[in-house]
């Protein structure tokens, strides 16, 4: 069943809907998911893992030795940068070049080591750095027109720009301001990645069906718990626990992702508030 139908079913909320397949309950039965859940062999409790977050300040302070981590951080947040570049007037192709070039510079040049990120946030830092980079690029492009060479940045990070523009229109279409677009895109990307990671974690421990059925509960939910119970072959109490766990795990994931982009733990709450403001605006 398609995502659209699942979404439609959730929106209308007529009777219990299986989030896993979007099938409406027939006579209180949800055969397919029940089979899927019963087929899962390893309903291990999620181990409470300690997240090894790499502080971006640490990354920048030791650029040479931390290249993989820096690459990872860049790869995780290319979309907001692309969104910014597009809203700042770059064509799709130019925006791709800008993002690739920006990362290449970030990874190779030493000038970023001079930045003092102790008080800052990775989000703000990247936005400002990109702004400068964009201005420099324009200067360079003008120079290129006058006869200078323009080097296209190597796509060594393997970023996949396919569908980036469509996503931009769908998810951040409400504003034309580059900075605001960046903030919205950043928050959306962070949450998308957290959900994706959580799904991978559940699948890896053999609880993929639990995740698929209950994932709607991550965004507030209010779904029919009796239907979930039927769908997963669990008792109502166990469904409550599973939802609670899923949310708690999601909170940890989101906070861990945020922790990697701020200087101190104390900043996590502020950053959460800032992201919420961006999405509420």
């Amino acid at each position, binding site marked *: 069943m398609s995502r659209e139908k699942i979404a439609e079913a959730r929106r209308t909320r007529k009777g219990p809907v299986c989030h896993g397949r979007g099938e409406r309950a027939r006579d209180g039965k949800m055969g397919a998911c029940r089979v899927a859940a019963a087929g899962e062999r*390893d309903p291990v409790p999620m181990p409470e893992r300690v*997240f090894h977050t790499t502080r971006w300040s640490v990354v920048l302070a030791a650029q040479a030795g931390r290249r993989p981590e820096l690459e990872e951080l860049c790869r995780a947040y290319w979309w907001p940068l692309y969104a910014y570049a597009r809203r700042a007037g770059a064509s799709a192709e130019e925006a791709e070049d800008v993002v690739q070039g920006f990362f290449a510079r970030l990874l190779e040049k030493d000038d970023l080591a001079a930045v003092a990120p102790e008080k800052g946030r990775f989000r703000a830092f990247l936005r400002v750095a990109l702004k400068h980079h964009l201005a420099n690029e324009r200067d360079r492009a003008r120079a290129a027109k006058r006869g200078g060479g323009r080097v296209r940045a190597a796509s060594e990070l393997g970023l996949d720009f396919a569908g980036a523009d469509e996503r931009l229109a769908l998810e951040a279409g409400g504003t034309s301001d580059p900075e605001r677009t960046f903030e919205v895109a950043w928050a959306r990307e962070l949450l*998308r990645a957290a959900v994706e990671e959580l799904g991978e974690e559940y699948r890896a421990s053999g609880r993929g069906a639990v995740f698929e059925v209950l994932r709607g509960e991550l*965004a507030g939910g209010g779904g029919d718990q009796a239907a979930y119970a039927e769908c997963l*072959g669990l008792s109502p109490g166990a469904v409550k626990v599973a939802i609670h766990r899923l949310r708690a795990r999601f909170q940890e994931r989101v*906070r861990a992702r945020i*922790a990697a982009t701020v200087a101190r733990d104390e900043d996590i709450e502020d950053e959460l508030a800032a992201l919420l403001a961006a999405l*509420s605006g």
Partner: protein
Amino acid sequence: MTPARYCTECGSALGADDLCPRCLLVVAAATPAPRAARTLPTSEELAALFPAFEVGELLGQGGMGLVYRARQRALERPVALKLLAREIAAEPGFAERFAREARVLASLAHPHIVQVFEFGQAGEWCWFAMELVEGASLRRLLAERTLDARQALAIVTQICEALQYAHDRGVVHRDIKPENVLVDRAGQVKILDFGLSKVSGAQPGDTLTRTHQVMGTPHYMAPEQWERPGEVDHRADLYALGVVFYELLTGELPLGRFEPPSKKVAIDVRLDEVVLRSLAKEPERRYQQASEIKTEVERVGATSPPAPARVVPAAPVPDRAPSAPVGAPRTRAQALAAGLQARRTHGPSTATREPFPLVLKLVLVLGCVATLATALFFLVFFR
């Protein structure tokens, strides 16, 4: 282009995953989650905190805390050093409860229970030094599908012995599950974290309210642990054992309206009754003692026909059996070890419990013969 979809709650555009980012963030920010980046103690900190131990690699970490491989300097013995999560230790009344319960745990000395050697508090950590078991958890063995019915029986009887021993001393495990049952290289079962849930002060229902998830998966919890957590006694362990037993035999959990094990795999039907009675909803209808389960399992094991195509001896042979044939494993543990070893040597999934492949082969052979006969018939009569 796909049209944008919007959240019915807040009107935000939904993401490609059909989830509303704003509602996601509201959930993520709603309740204070446990500290996301709980820092591990550094090796210098560990050395300062535990001068009596040479602390080595981190073996595992979970809701309960951290476990390190360590060496006790004075006795030069390897130990597992378990550090309880700081959040648990920070709770009011924990220190007294810890000291009281830890003494009880340290007094448990049984070959199938991981021995607690020492305990104490160092800085903000409460710790146990325990017997270091080199082996695998039942969870891993279940995942590898390396166990057959006979090995399952050997494991269950050993768990029964450990439970009976502890129950006789008034200690209830309260969190029996495959993760807490280790099988060492000699095939000895060792139960981990005995009574630790009590030390941590966790009630099963607490899973809903506490940030650190102390209790395990709800699948192993007896109904009364949900409904009347205050009245839990040793029979909750017997229920959990029933779940483990069912899982060992069938590879699945007894969820909803589950079938008896013999309907799912080729095993002695008498085991159905043992498993189902252990899983009775009312504690009164279960076995009342672990030793009863052990007796039943041993009786079935002693009179079962030999398992097909397996190398493990037919019955768990008593430890003091002088007449055991040469080369045959003499104890259950040895039988288990031999079985595991044989299974590992032969690869994880070569042996099957059912004679299905044999039937398949017969059908194939008969089919080939019939085809050949028909071909010959046509050749001879229509040439």
